[in-house]
Structures are given as structure tokens and as C-alpha cells.
């Protein structure tokens, strides 16, 4: 009795475990990692979702290649791809990275140089917008190609400006913008003078703030990697930004990032918004925006520099660990080609064509017409960016609204938290910058930048 029931229990348990193990071969969000499968890690942005929809066209043209997507929000994607590449797991054949990662990862030897692939005349690599191409190169070799690019500009409500008898200059200064914000700030009617990001994160509040620091003549580091966050110019810029958003900015500014400002502006709760040029295509979409057709677009406000826009491009790169580099390039080539832009225009609508990547896009009559409100301001903003020296001073890295060193993700996040706390009124700008300066100096010392 005893032994019998015990053995029966064991039997039941082992049956259960076997069934469980058999059931666990994995459902697969698309299949296995067999030959000819290209696995792509992408950010969950609308443009990327479009490409997922159109991939069947690519697969039809390339019968031997099956494409699978891993779609994640920006931060999760960055963590995941870094983890994969740094541990040489080789799960991804194509990764979506930005202008910040590309030179760093190229220096680490993580990315495949695309020069040879891209020299294919059919690809027309010279059609890629020059500032974007430069930002995606390391030591004159191209390591990623842009899927879509953005700069920053000032978006404003033409109707509110007319109503208040104000006129937006073709190239506003920050002081003019602050004056407009003061006049248009109307909390009773839920309209903020200006929407500016205050959310912590190096890709959130620091993007507009750093472009402002540069045009005020400030900088993060001088050419010898000495931190400059408490210099008079930087301090002036940060005080200006924090004052502006505290006085005439949106409610809940310390928690507002791109998405929150897009919602606020799109729902008519902001008179101006300084942010990424890609915001315009959402604001002009009548399905989700109440301000479509009412918006005007002018270049990023300046102070001491001629131009002040930032530069970012979500780009496709092929990790060195990929076993399918040729197939991967076939996909990358297709996704960043003129043909793909045409396909998006015809199948999904011309406003959904990836902006800021190819000059030819801006010469397409259908695109010019569909995106007439923002196409030219976007192109001009991107073309005016100098990624080597965006501010008044020389800088020892390539990039505008970030410092292209691996440590910046951590440093930038910590500094952004101090800035956000200043926007929330928990500390003064001087206090925030004193802490930021110490962190930045320590980072440069520990990273061995100052010694070289």
C-alpha cells in the first residue's frame, strides 16, 4: 500500500513534468532561428510599425529571407540590444540604434562597416542627408544608415498668435520666444505659453536643454574634457530654461516628456512647443490632433549661434555577431531605400514616409504636397546642423544634444534628475548645476578622458 501509492505519486509527478516539458518547446512569435531568418530589433515608434506592416512586400521580393521583429520601447530596446551585443549572443541581425550609440559601438568593434554594401549604385548613398550620414560614421566609415531623422524646431499656434496680435519672426531668438510665452500663457483656459520637456532622462529633458545651452554659448565639456556645467553661459541657459518652463510652461512639467508635450499641444493646451521635428507629422494628423492646419513651424530659437537644432536619427545597423550579414543588408537596403519611401507613400499615405533620411524624399512632388506644412522646415533644420561643432566652442566628440561617450547614459540621466528637481522647485538651478558639474568632472576623470 505504502510503496504502491508512493510510486503512483512519483509517476503522476513525472507525467506532469514530461507533459510540461513537451508543451514548452516555445510558440514562437514567428518561428525558429533557422537559415535565412533575419531578426530585427526595433523601437516601438509609428514609423517602425509601418515597416512591420510592409515587410510582406520585402519577403515576396526575397523568397529566401524571413523577417522577424522584436519591438520594444526605446529604453528597453537599448538595454536589450546592448546586452545582446556585449555578451556576443548574436540574437539580432539588424538593430535599431540612434546617432548617440553608432560611433561608440563602432569604436567598440560591435558594428559591421556598411561602406562596401552601401557603395552599390542602386542604393545611392550620397542621397542620405549629409549631417545624418556624418553622425552615423566613425573615422570616416559608415556604420549605420538612417531609417528616419529629426532635428528640432519651434512649433507654434498661428491662430493664437494672430488673435493676440503677435508675429513670429522667421528666425526667433529665445528672448523673443520667452516674451511670446508670457503673453500667450493662459492657465485659466488651459493653454500653456510653451511646452518644454522636464522629464528626467538624457533623451528627454536634456535634449531641448542641451541645444539651448549650446546656443547660449555654453557646453558640457571643453576640448580637454573639463566639465563646463557651471560656466556663466551654461548657467545662464539653464536658468533661462527652468524659469521659462516654471513660469509659462505646461502644468506638471517635471513629468512631461515628448509624448506629454505632444498630447498637450495636439489637444490645444500649448501655444508653442520646442521639440523634435517629427512632432509635426502627428500634429498635422487630423485623426489624433485638434490643431491640424493651425500650426506654424520656425527654426530652433537661437541666441549666439546661427542655428540651434539638434540631430537624431533612428538608424539600422548590422551587429558584428550576425550570422546573416548579407541577408541583413538586403533588408537594411530595402528599408532605407527610395523604393521603400515610395511604397509607404502609395500604400500608407505620403505623410507617413520616413522623414529626415534622404534628400530625394523632399523632391518627391507627392511628399511635398502632403507634408507641405512641415517638410521644408524639417529639411532645413536637419541640413543646418553641424554635428562636429554645434555650439560656439570646439568639442571633442560628434553630436549635438548629448556627449558621445558610453558614460553619458548614466551621467546624463543623473544630471537630468537634478534639472528636473530644479524645474519642480525642489532646489535652485545653481544647486543643481553644482552637483551636475561634480558628476561630470568625476565621469571625465574616471573615464580617463582628461589624461589623454
Amino acid at each position, binding site marked *: *500500500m*505504502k510503496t*504502491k*501509492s*508512493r510510486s503512483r*505519486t512519483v509517476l503522476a*509527478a513525472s507525467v*506532469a*513534468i514530461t507533459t*510540461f*516539458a513537451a*508543451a*514548452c*518547446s*516555445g*510558440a*514562437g*512569435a*514567428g*518561428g*525558429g*532561428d533557422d537559415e535565412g531568418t533575419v*531578426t530585427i*530589433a526595433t*523601437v*516601438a*515608434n*509609428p514609423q517602425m510599425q509601418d515597416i*512591420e506592416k510592409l515587410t510582406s512586400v520585402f519577403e515576396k521580393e526575397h523568397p529566401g529571407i524571413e523577417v*522577424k*521583429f*522584436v*519591438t*520594444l*520601447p*526605446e529604453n*528597453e530596446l537599448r*538595454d*536589450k540590444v546592448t*546586452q*545582446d551585443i556585449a*555578451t556576443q*549572443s548574436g*540574437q*539580432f541581425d539588424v538593430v535599431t540604434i540612434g546617432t548617440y550609440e553608432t560611433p561608440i559601438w563602432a569604436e567598440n568593434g560591435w558594428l559591421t562597416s556598411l561602406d562596401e554594401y552601401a557603395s552599390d549604385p542602386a542604393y545611392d548613398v550620397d542621397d542620405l542627408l549629409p549631417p545624418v550620414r556624418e553622425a552615423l560614421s566613425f573615422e570616416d566609415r559608415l556604420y549605420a544608415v538612417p531609417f528616419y531623422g529629426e532635428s528640432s524646431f519651434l512649433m507654434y499656434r498661428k491662430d493664437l498668435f494672430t488673435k493676440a496680435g503677435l508675429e513670429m519672426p522667421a528666425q526667433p531668438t529665445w528672448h523673443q520666444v520667452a516674451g511670446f510665452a508670457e503673453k500667450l500663457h493662459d492657465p485659466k483656459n*488651459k493653454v500653456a505659453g510653451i511646452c518644454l520637456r522636464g522629464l528626467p532622462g538624457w*533623451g528627454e529633458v536634456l535634449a531641448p536643454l542641451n541645444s539651448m545651452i549650446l546656443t547660449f554659448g555654453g557646453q558640457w565639456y571643453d576640448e580637454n574634457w573639463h566639465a563646463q556645467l557651471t560656466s556663466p553661459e551654461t548657467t545662464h541657459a539653464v536658468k533661462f530654461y527652468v524659469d521659462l518652463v516654471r513660469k509659462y510652461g505646461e502644468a506638471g512639467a517635471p513629468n512631461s*516628456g*515628448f*509624448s506629454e508635450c*505632444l498630447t498637450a499641444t*495636439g*489637444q490645444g*493646451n500649448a501655444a508653442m512647443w520646442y521639440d*523634435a521635428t*517629427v512632432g509635426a507629422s*502627428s500634429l498635422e494628423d487630423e*485623426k*489624433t*490632433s485638434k490643431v491640424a492646419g493651425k500650426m506654424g513651424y520656425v527654426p530652433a530659437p537661437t541666441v549666439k549661434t546661427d542655428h540651434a537644432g539638434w540631430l537624431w536619427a533612428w538608424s539600422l545597423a548590422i551587429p558584428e555577431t550576425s550570422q546573416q550579414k548579407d541577408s541583413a543588408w538586403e533588408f537594411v537596403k530595402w528599408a532605407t531605400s527610395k523604393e521603400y519611401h515610395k511604397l509607404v507613400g502609395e500604400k500608407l499615405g505620403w505623410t507617413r514616409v520616413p522623414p529626415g533620411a534622404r534628400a530625394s524624399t523632399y523632391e518627391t512632388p507627392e511628399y511635398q504636397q502632403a507634408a507641405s506644412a512641415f517638410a521644408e522646415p524639417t529639411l532645413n533644420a536637419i541640413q543646418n546642423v553641424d554635428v562636429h561643432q554645434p555650439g560656439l566652442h570646439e568639442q571633442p566628440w560628434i553630436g549635438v544634444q548629448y556627449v558621445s561617450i558610453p558614460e553619458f547614459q548614466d551621467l546624463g540621466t543623473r544630471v537630468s534628475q537634478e534639472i528636473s528637481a530644479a524645474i519642480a522647485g525642489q532646489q535652485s538651478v545653481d544647486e543643481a548645476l553644482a552637483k551636475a558639474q561634480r558628476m561630470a568632472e568625476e565621469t571625465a576623470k574616471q573615464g580617463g578622458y582628461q589624461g589623454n
Partner: protein
Amino acid sequence: MSTVIAPSWRRVRPGTVVTGALAWAAALVLFFPVLWMFVTGFKQEAQASTDPPTWLFTPTLEQFQAILGRNFTPYLLNSLMATVGSTVLVILLATPAAYALSLAPVARWKDALFFFISTRMMPPVAIILPLYIIANNIGMLDNITMLSLIYTVMNLPIAVWMIRSFLLELPKEVLEAARVDGAGFGTEIRRIILPMIAPGLAATALICFIFAWNEFFFAVSMTATNAPTVPVFLTGFVTSEGLFLARLSAAATMAALPVILAGWVAQKWLVRGLSLGAVK
């Protein structure tokens, strides 16, 4: 075993009314976000992010259709495999372990008990890199069996502690009476102990099910194309460019359905199990 006594209105006192009202208020406050998520799933994107919130609108199934168009099924199957698999395994392993730590305590059982719970003290992020490298080396990255094993290990300590508390509540007299009547070890387990702690086992299983179903960190770190689960699918709607609240709410509603269903099925047992009155 006595049955749960339903509150009877004859014994209502003013104090009960107040606590009852408070309980209802608390329940509504806790439930509101879930309700709001459910409602938001039927809105258009623009309606989902208005200030003030939109209360009246024409419901649309647009968001749900869009989600089904994005190949939801594999994620659902992966989640079911990882969750059901790990829950079954946890109960199978935790029940004997709990027995050996309560009714028939092994030597140094207190240390063993503490060792179990101590594994939960280290934050998952501290072990993710070694885990990732090991999984990569043994070829188990992006594999649903690996994920199930991780969830088993993750839930085992809680299950052992919970089941142990149910076992400790068993009246000694019942077990002694069974032994006097000549019940062997197997009979004692199958005929006496298991039926008595069944509500407790159901409650434990449901909690393990919920934890595994909602787990995100390991799922996002350890999977790519073959084994991603529903929470990973959900984040695919979080974009830094454009509105996504309505679609995300619709997706979250669909993701919550299996757990709600499991909870509903287990409801009868749960009330007894969770109120720890299982065997009294």
C-alpha cells in the same frame, strides 16, 4: 472544516456599516484604474488623452482589431506555457518541501526556511547578467522552457511559505486519528492532508499564476523572437512618438483576461484559501 459563514443582516451594527462602506470605497478606488483601462480600450486615440478626461464617447473596436492584426496568439501561447508550466511545477515541488518544513520537520528546518526566502531578497536585476550568459552558453536563450524554470524558481519560496502555513493549521488530532485508524503515509497525504489544504493550494497556485503571468523583467531580458510573453507584447505599444494610450489599454485588457478568468474559476476556493481559514 466548517463552511464560511455569510454575514447576516440580523447581526448588523452601526460599526459594521461604516467598515463595510470603507471596504467598498477602498475596493472601488483600487478597481477604478482597471475599469478606466477597460473603458479606454474602446476609445479613439485622441479621446484617450484629453484633459479633462472624456467620459462619454461612441465605443469602437478599432484598437482591439489592430491588436489582433499584430499576431497576438504566439505571445499568448508563450505566456500560457510559461505560467501554467511553472505553476504546476511550483506546486509539485513546494508541497513536499513545505511538508518537510512543517509536519515532519527536517534537521535545521529554520535555516532551510530562511534560505528559501533569502533567495527573494536579491533584486532580479542583480542576477540577470550571469543568468543571461549561462542561458546563452547552454543554448537556452529565447526559450520558453528556460523562462518557465526561472518563474518556477522565482515563485517557489513564496509557495513553500504559503503551503507551509496551511499545513501548520491542520489540526494535529485529525492526523493522529488517521494514523490510529491505520492510514499509511500515502493515504495520509492523499486522503487527509491534500483535501484539507486544497483551498490553500488553489490560492497559492493562483498567486504563482498571477506573478508569472505579469512578470516582465525576465521576460523582456531573456527572450527575443521565439519566447516573448504577453507583457513584452504590451510594451510594443509604448512609443515615444505619438499617442498610444487607447491601444495600450485595449492590449492590456486582453492581457488581463486570462488572469481574471483563472481568478473567477478559483473564486470559491480562493476566499477560503486567502483568508487563511482554510482548515479551521
